[in-house]
């Protein structure tokens, strides 16, 4: 699903990612751990095509990120969904409109959109807020809208940057259950987090650690090294 060799990325003179080698198989569940400023978001943005590869070779979901032109990036983004830390939802539109957006841009039929959006909203306990404007929602609810929008298209790969950051414990655990459900249906998932509790909830997940732009540790929960 993901194959990266010798990836480096810098903002001006500041090196954000240093010589990273990484691979992820289809159907894998990966936690990307590390402190703030370690380069997790930069790493995810490269995987989603929001940042161009500067050095190294990156393949995501069958797309060569080194050669993928801006005109063709939407093909990648239809296979790879992302939940950003700042949610990136439309505040002046309601929950339903935000969640249906990726289905609309794919030209999915109206009745299928309605069915799928309602199902996802129900699973994230947002069904009663479907017609509420997103700017009127709490941070946690906005985060759930972002997650709903990412999973509604059943992507091949789901990237989530701190998806439980604004949620209380119960909702965070519920969110992880939803990710687990999608994982069971074959979606590859990578979650950037530093929440130890959710790491423990996914004992079979693989954990990768980024620190100062260096991916220096890779292990499975329960101490099994791949």
């Amino acid at each position: 699903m993901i194959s990266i060799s010798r990836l480096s990325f810098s903002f001006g003179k500041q090196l954000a990612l240093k010589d990273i080698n990484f691979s992820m198989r289809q159907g894998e569940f990966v936690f990307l751990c590390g402190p703030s400023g370690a380069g997790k978001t930069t790493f995810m943005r490269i995987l989603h095509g929001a940042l161009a590869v500067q050095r190294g070779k990156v393949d995501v979901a069958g797309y060569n990120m080194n050669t993928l032109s801006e005109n063709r990036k939407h093909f990648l983004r239809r296979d790879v969904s992302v939940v950003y830390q700042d949610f990136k939802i439309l505040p002046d539109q309601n929950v339903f409109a935000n969640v249906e957006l990726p289905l609309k841009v794919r030209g999915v039929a109206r009745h299928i959109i309605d069915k799928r959006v309602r199902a996802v909203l129900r699973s994230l306990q947002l069904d009663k807020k479907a017609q509420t404007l997103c700017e009127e929602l709490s941070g946690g609810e906005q985060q759930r809208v972002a997650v709903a929008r990412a999973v509604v298209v059943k992507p091949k790969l789901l990237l989530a940057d701190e998806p439980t950051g604004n949620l209380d414990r119960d909702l965070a655990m519920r969110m992880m259950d939803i990710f687990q459900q999608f994982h069971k249906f074959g979606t590859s998932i990578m979650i950037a987090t530093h929440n130890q509790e959710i790491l423990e909830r996914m004992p079979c997940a693989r954990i990768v650690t980024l620190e100062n732009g260096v991916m220096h540790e890779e292990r499975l929960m329960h101490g099994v090294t791949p």
Partner: protein
Amino acid sequence: MMVFFRLFFQGIRDLFRVPWSLCMTLAAITLVCFLGGAFLLVLHNFNLQIEARHGNVQFQIFWNTQADKEEVQKTWAGLSAMEGVVNVRTFTPDQALDVLGESFQKNIDLDWMKGRSPLPPTAILDCQVPDAEQTKWAQSTLSTLKALPHVEKVSFNPLQVDLLTSWVGFTKMAFWPVIVFLLLVVALVVGNTIKLALLTRREELEILRFVGASRAYIQFPLLVGGLFQGVMGSALALGLLGLAFHFIKDLLNIPPLWITISFLPSMHCLTMLGLLGAVGMLSSLVALRN
């Protein structure tokens, strides 16, 4: 096809999300188009007047009142054979008196002067101005007419030839630069509005990209927005021009001009709508490319 129509209407709907910006842009386009339309209207009516007169000039010849009637009539018979002459109208002193009486709109009775009219025998020559050497031709015709027997005076306004020549030259010279200038102004106005829309909707467009929208999906509504602004602005301008026309159409329909102003032909109006729509769309495309 459904997606096409949905995006088409979304492009128009999106414009109304920033109504003030839309109003200002439409006002600017409308004013520029109104200016262009008014210029076209003036050109169109000038051309109509020139066409109505077939680009002719007139010579009016007055004979001596004492001249022999038969000799004058012999001269009249030869006038139509002269170079460039397309129409000859002749007036005996009595006929001239009738015309004079008509011009008073029967307020004054001149019948008592019949048979002893003080007016001279007169002829009016309508001449087609040749394409080349117009001034030379006018001078030579004037000399020939003055040399006719018993001719006392020949009236001719050399300005007619000069005006005709100047007008044709002016329309050739000024038409395209003025139209191109006005189109450029419209393109800049629409282009700036689209750029403004791109700036205000930057986050929304970024989100659309993130959720997998293609470039065409994002850009098509903006192109439709440009098209709509161009067409709407020119339609409003034509409406305004029609309103102004309603008030001025009979402004020159008074003696001695008797000129009725005509509105732009429908083909001109359609061309204006199409051209402005295309310019709006093109400028949106340039704004998007930048």
